[in-house]
């Protein structure tokens, strides 16, 4: 009776949780409904976790003596894991968000792998199909765990250089093949009383190779491609969770896992599209040092202007589109930029922020960084919606961005960024570029926009430039107050 009631409650709560998780993601379709969406999903998750303690009433008689210890371990693991992650999640800077997401994602992959390990080491016998699903989940989860840790280290600048040696991709392929072979042999030998290697050792070898493969797969990938990698591993973890959900006969895990698997896949494709690269190239093409390319001679010259002059010019413009890049976040200038924008708005200037899909270190990061600084989201527009407006705009203010406004992407077929969608800052009547120096962008190429006739360079740290522009404009309006 107690067993039946427990199963009924767990089943119902998990069903509700699966619905709430999907509904929560559904509400992410707009910044208005999204905050309540995550709360809804959180309630579902909390209920599912609480209900799973009812499993204590459904365990086999042989497990009963272990229950007190198991419950204690479960409570301790929940408190420690959730406590540390909650604390660090509250504290982490928005600029460090990609690392945090990578790390939390790796944890999920590790958890899926650990569940698979218990199933494999455990005494329960499985059919061949179930063993294959368990192993597949174990493989994907393990790759996600070790790969995410490497991605985190790269994003956190602990690992600087991508790993390269000739034949690396072949070597990686062999490692993966070996892992699959070991897994296949485990399924084959499951019925055998005496496999060549004792089963527990086979399991250890399998996990070892899978973890090593995750590291090897991630090491050659450059820092700029890390957003795609995080997204791929997010999908991997989802998939692993879904597969282990099948093994545990838990449909809530299957649904939530597969949902994330599909989400990760879609985001990965969107991002690769925005970077004008194929996913396969990012993951499996080992990039050496980028090929040296002779860039055509650039006409025109760099025309430096003072920040204060630029600020005053913008004060008397009608419309401005700001193109922020990661350089703005590096100098922590978002807040100071918004102070300047508020001054312009008060003077009747129409101001918008145009965001390129790959601005920042993960998709949408620049949007969050601006939101953190207090910029209302209705001022933030995306590439497809704003690109036509540049030609009717008085000033494009490019601040800390480079490759995403490089007109070469439209015209020069030999350019490494050819075909990448760019923001048409060059079509604005006047263009100010705030930059620290004459350096090149991530793609390592000179940007002809900087040499264009209507472009003026404002040299300096983004935050400092914003401060001087603000002071210059304040000085116009109320000289007494500024002094």
């Amino acid at each position, binding site marked *: 009776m107690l067993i039946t009631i427990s199963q009924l409650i767990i089943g119902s709560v998990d069903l509700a949780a699966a619905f709430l998780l999907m509904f929560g*993601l559904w509400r*992410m379709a*707009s910044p208005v409904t999204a905050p309540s969406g995550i709360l809804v999903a959180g309630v579902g998750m909390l209920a599912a976790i609480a209900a799973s303690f009812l499993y204590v009433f459904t365990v086999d008689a042989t497990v009963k003596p272990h229950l007190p210890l198991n419950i204690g371990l479960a409570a301790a693991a929940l408190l420690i894991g959730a406590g540390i992650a909650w604390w660090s999640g509250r504290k982490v800077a928005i600029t460090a968000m990609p690392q945090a997401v990578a790390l*939390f994602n790796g944890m999920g992959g590790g958890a899926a792998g650990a569940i698979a390990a218990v199933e494999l080491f455990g005494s329960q016998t499985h059919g061949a199909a179930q063993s294959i699903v368990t192993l597949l989940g174990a493989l994907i989860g393990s790759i996600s765990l070790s790969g995410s840790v490497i991605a985190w280290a790269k994003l956190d600048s602990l690992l600087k250089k991508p790993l390269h040696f000739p034949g690396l991709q072949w070597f990686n392929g062999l490692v993966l093949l070996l892992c699959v072979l070991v897994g296949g042999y485990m399924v084959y030998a499951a019925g055998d009383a005496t496999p060549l290697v004792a089963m527990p050792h086979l399991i250890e070898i399998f996990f070892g190779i899978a973890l090593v493969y995750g590291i090897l797969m991630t090491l050659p990938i450059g820092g700029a491609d890390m957003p795609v990698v995080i997204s791929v591993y997010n999908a991997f973890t989802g998939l692993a969770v879904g597969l282990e959900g099948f093994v545990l006969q838990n449909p809530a895990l299957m649904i939530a896992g597969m949902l994330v698997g599909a989400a990760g896949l879609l985001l990965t494709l969107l991002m690769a599209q925005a970077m004008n690269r194929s996913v396969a190239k990012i993951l499996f093409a080992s990039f050496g040092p980028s090929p040296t390319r002779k860039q055509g001679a650039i006409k025109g010259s760099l025309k430096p202007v003072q920040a204060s002059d630029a600020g005053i010019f913008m004060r008397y413009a009608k419309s401005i589109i700001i193109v922020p890049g990661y350089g703005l976040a590096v100098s922590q200038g978002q807040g100071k930029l918004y102070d300047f924008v508020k001054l312009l708005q008060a003077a009747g200037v129409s101001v918008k922020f145009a965001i390129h899909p790959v601005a920042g270190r993960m998709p949408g990061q620049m949007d969050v960084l601006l939101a953190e600084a207090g910029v209302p989201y209705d001022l933030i527009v995306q590439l497809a919606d704003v690109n036509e407006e540049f030609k009717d705009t008085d000033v494009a203010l490019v601040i800390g961005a480079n490759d995403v406004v490089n007109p070469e992407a439209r015209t020069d077929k030999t350019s490494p960024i050819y075909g990448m969608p760019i923001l048409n800052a060059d079509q604005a009547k006047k263009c100010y570029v705030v930059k620290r120096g004459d350096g090149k962008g991530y793609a390592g190429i000179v940007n002809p926009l900087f040499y264009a006739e209507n472009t003026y360079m404002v040299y300096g740290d983004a935050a400092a430039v914003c401060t001087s522009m603000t002071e210059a404009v304040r000085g116009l309006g109320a000289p007494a107050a500024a002094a």
Partner: protein
Amino acid sequence: MNYQIHIDGFVAVYIFMVTAFAGWVIIGRVPAILHTPLMSGSNFVHGIVVVGGLFTLLNASTPLEQTIGFFAVLLGAGNVAGGFAVTQRMLAMFKDSGHGGTHAAHGARHAKSAKHAAPKAVKAISPKKT
């Protein structure tokens, strides 16, 4: 009566297929401005793996199973709590300009149906004015 769930081969494939399709549709609605919270939010969703970890740990009967199960719950709990904390924090930062008058309900409904809505005339849900 028995409420033990049994999902066999093809049923599982059907579940996976329908869910993948639903996921694709649901995520396709999310505007680019929310892609970072979406990523951490979906990260949070697969944190439900902690439920599987709890099942495994509570059914453990050997020290080895208990040890690995402990780590499954530990990592899963980290995934859930961390994913929720960062997502909720980021989403709370998104505010609008605060204009739009008293058409709050209408605006919200409109935003829900619009595909790539970075809604223009949506009334501030948040009390904080900029």
